């Protein structure tokens, strides 16, 4: 589905992402974690087309997407959300989602239907005529996901969608992510909250200092001494 091969991105002398390789299987939820400054967001931005990789390749279903502009990447079936939500404030929730749906069909009638589907999945139908600026934070996070879903992605990149949510809201968001996967969309999720990432992901990739530190199922990765050291320091090694 998604193959990342020896991907690097340097900012000046700093190698934010250094020779990282991993793959995503269709229908999988892959968690991407790492301490602050590990390069998660940079990697994420490279995949989503927001920044160009310095070297290496990113293939979505066999087609190279590294270095393509965001709208091209989106057209090829990759949706993303932003860590800091970016709703179109002065548009209604519905219109926000329609913009996403227009990625699939330029016929307004059809786009409206597709947008309604995405609103349905994310539970935003009651809010659909509100201006996005008036939504609560969980509402905005849902809107981010709804817009991305409306673009009709095969792969969805979620950048810290749970940050700032309370436990009940997090529970609901986890449910939503599982539903999304059930509908056949592959998910790559970046998250700080360990509990979330271990409960929702099939596999986890750990980044540290721009390099891949570990990869595997949640239980194995979380017990990996190298991962514990990276997160907590060597004193905590039992």
């Amino acid at each position: 589905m998604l193959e990342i091969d020896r991907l690097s991105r340097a900012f000046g002398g700093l190698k934010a992402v250094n020779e990282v390789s991993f793959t995503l299987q269709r229908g999988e939820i892959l968690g991407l974690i790492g301490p602050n400054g590990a390069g998660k967001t940079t990697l994420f931005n490279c995949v989503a087309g927001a920044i160009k990789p310095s070297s290496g390749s990113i293939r979505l279903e066999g087609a190279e997407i590294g270095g393509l502009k965001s709208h091209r990447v989106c057209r090829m079936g990759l949706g993303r959300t932003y860590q800091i939500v970016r709703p179109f404030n002065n548009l209604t929730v519905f219109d926000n989602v329609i913009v996403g749906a227009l990625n699939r069909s330029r016929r307004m009638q059809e786009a409206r239907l597709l947008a309604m589907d995405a609103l349905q999945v994310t539970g935003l139908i009651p809010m659909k005529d509100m201006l996005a600026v008036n939504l609560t934070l969980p509402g905005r996070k849902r809107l981010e996901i709804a817009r991305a879903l409306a673009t009709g992605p095969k792969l969805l990149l979620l950048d810290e969608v749970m940050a700032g949510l309370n436990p009940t809201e997090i529970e609901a968001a986890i449910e939503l992510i599982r539903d999304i996967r059930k509908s056949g969309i592959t998910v790559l999720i970046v998250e700080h909250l360990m509990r979330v990432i271990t409960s929702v992901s099939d596999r986890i990739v750990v980044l540290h200092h721009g390099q891949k530190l570990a990869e595997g199922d949640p239980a194995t990765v979380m017990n990996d001494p190298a991962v514990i050291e990276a997160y907590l320091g060597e004193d905590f090694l039992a």
Partner: protein
Amino acid sequence: MNTTKMRFIDRALGLPGAVALLCLAAVFPIFVSDSYALHFLWKILFWAVVASAWNIAGGYAGQFSLGHAAFFGIGAYASTILFVRFGVSPWWGMLVGGVLAALASVVLARLTLRLKGPFFALATIAFAEVLRIVVVNARDLTGGSQGISIPFKPALETLIFSGRTPYVYTMLILLAAVILLTFLIQRSWFGFSLLALREDEDAAETLGVDTVAMKIVATGISAFLTAIAGVLYAQYILLIEPVTVMGLDFSIQVAVISIIGGMASPVGPLLGALLMVPLSEYLRAEFGGSFQGLYLIIYGALLMVMVIFMPQGLVSAIRQPRSTWARICSISGYQRKRIRRADHA
């Protein structure tokens, strides 16, 4: 305010409102033959056209240009030079001027692609000013700062008429076309893409909107229409000079009318012109001799008041009278209690 009622007003303000206003303008010359009144109507229609054209780029796509005088001037000069020097009909002049202006806008869009907000606005001012200086200096072609006067040869082919009524109708047709086009854009995928672009370029790009292409197309359409208005202006006034057709004053006036009327609304610029043209006419007639420049002070003050109290323009005051009123009250600190109730309602 409840949503259904708002929807209704929205619709009434939309196409029917625009059609009603245009029909009113269309019957006006039947009952009024006073030359000054017709000139006045022409002026309102003219400013409504250029402000509506600006609105496509400035209001919908958020490309806040203060350089639209460049496109206007390109239209006026291209057709006038073709007409006066080579005897080419201004009908062709419209096409040539429009295409040249659109090309210029593509160049401008390419140059300013990465600029946002005030930096973009400043760059567009610079662009128009440079072009104006070029026109002033290319004396052989453009007549320098004296400009070019157009010989009075009334005919449909020359777009010059002996009475004012035909001028009013040509401008009215153009206005109707521009407003209709704005409606079509607003309802299409293109309009949605422009709004997304205006709201957040990166987010729009992420959702599959080709923001670069959208910017170029929006400013291209806007420039094309502005240039056509330039041609009609030249054939009516029969004199074009760099200061009036390519000056910063023109660019600012266009933007101000659009902002005051309501950006990203098909009828907004028309409402803006309905308010601003009579106002500036009155101020100039009343104080033009004794207090030159007073109209600029009043313009500035009015703009500030509008931005504070009705940031969405006149259109919003008609669309949501209660929330606009609440806003005015709350900002001026008046009748606190009643506002709260209005908010909860």
